[in-house]
């Protein structure tokens, strides 16, 4: 966030924070509510839950953590983080398909 925000700017931000707060609560209710509907399709259930979680996380990161208007330096740090995080997840998928010899699987 710019360091020269005026009081009016901040007052506007406050409204955004409240809106995000309500959106987060609604997101939580939606996630839990959908869970009570009991879809038989596990892929659909997981996809919806993760989709809502990602939206909620983005809202927190963009507005509460001010990532929507940050300095370049922060984005550079986060670009590295994102790269290594995604790599880590790919290692996991790789491990799943590459059992060591003689491993018993069900």
């Amino acid at each position: 966030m710019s360091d020269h925000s005026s009081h009016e700017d901040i007052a506007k931000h406050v409204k955004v924070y409240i809106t995000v707060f309500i959106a987060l609560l609604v997101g939580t209710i939606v996630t839990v509510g959908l869970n009570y509907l009991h879809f038989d399709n596990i892929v659909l259930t997981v996809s919806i839950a993760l989709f809502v979680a990602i939206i909620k996380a983005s809202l927190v990161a963009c507005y509460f953590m001010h990532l929507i208007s940050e300095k370049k330096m922060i984005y550079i740090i986060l670009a590295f983080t994102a790269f290594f995080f995604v790599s880590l997840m790919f290692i996991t998928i790789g491990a799943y398909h590459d059992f060591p010899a003689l491993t018993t699987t069900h």
Partner: protein
Amino acid sequence: MEIPYTSQPRPDTGIYNAKVGIWLFLASEVMLFGALFSSYILLRVGSAEGYWPHGLLNIPIGTFNTAVLITSSVTVVLSWASLKMGNFGRYKIYQAITILCALGFLGIKSYEYREKFSHYEVWLKKEVTVKHGDKEIKTDRLLGHIEHQGHHAFFWNTKTLAGAPEEKDKDGKVIKAAVLPIESFKLLPDPFHYAMTSKEMAHAKAEAAGKPHEEIEIKSSDVKRLSAFVPGHSTYFAVYFTLTALHALHVLGGAIVIFYIWGPGAKMWKTDPERYINRVEVSGLFWHFVDLVWIFLFPVLYLL
């Protein structure tokens, strides 16, 4: 030595140093939780059909705790905005709510943990018939609470049933009295089993609602394995306790820092307000990260 750029932005990065610092720290935190999450995914995907427990956590309580954490996140950012507008009094109020929410979250989490420590799975040598509502089910794996001598039992495992001989020190003095073996115990069974689909589980729950629980007397000699819902119960609970306890430690750490800045550290508002606002912002960034981790933990551990 004077710490450089605590309030003024450093010319080359365009931000004050603490902010670069906290983001680098958060980057390492992403990798820490990322590693644990990826372990979770691997274990979950690799588990045999029907062996991954679900429906064992208290969803309403988990949902409430999620709301508590989200509330604390918004009060953190509102307290920062209040300081930016020069309203110290309102900052104090918002941040007090944050600290209360943090304590509330930890309290509720402790309650949940306690519930788990007295909730059991019993693997039997032979199948038994259990009444769930009007339905009769044959099973060799029971879930429920154990009642023994009028009390709920905590932290029992298979070895507990065998009792323990008395322990003596080297002079022959008894330091621990013998514990008698447990011949049999009472189990108050849950209306569902996690090998059921979530639909069946909901049905069993609805059917059993309002009806008295039928206790089952179980002979210890019929028990193959017995475990409370502790990390040793299963891979699922090992992952659950690792992730949630690490997260709870973050909540505790964040609450201590926020409390310090709010209480004893508040003198800085008079001497160096810019730096003080930055401290609040940096502690807030950490707090939002903790909230963000929970946003993923909650559906993954409670719902899926």
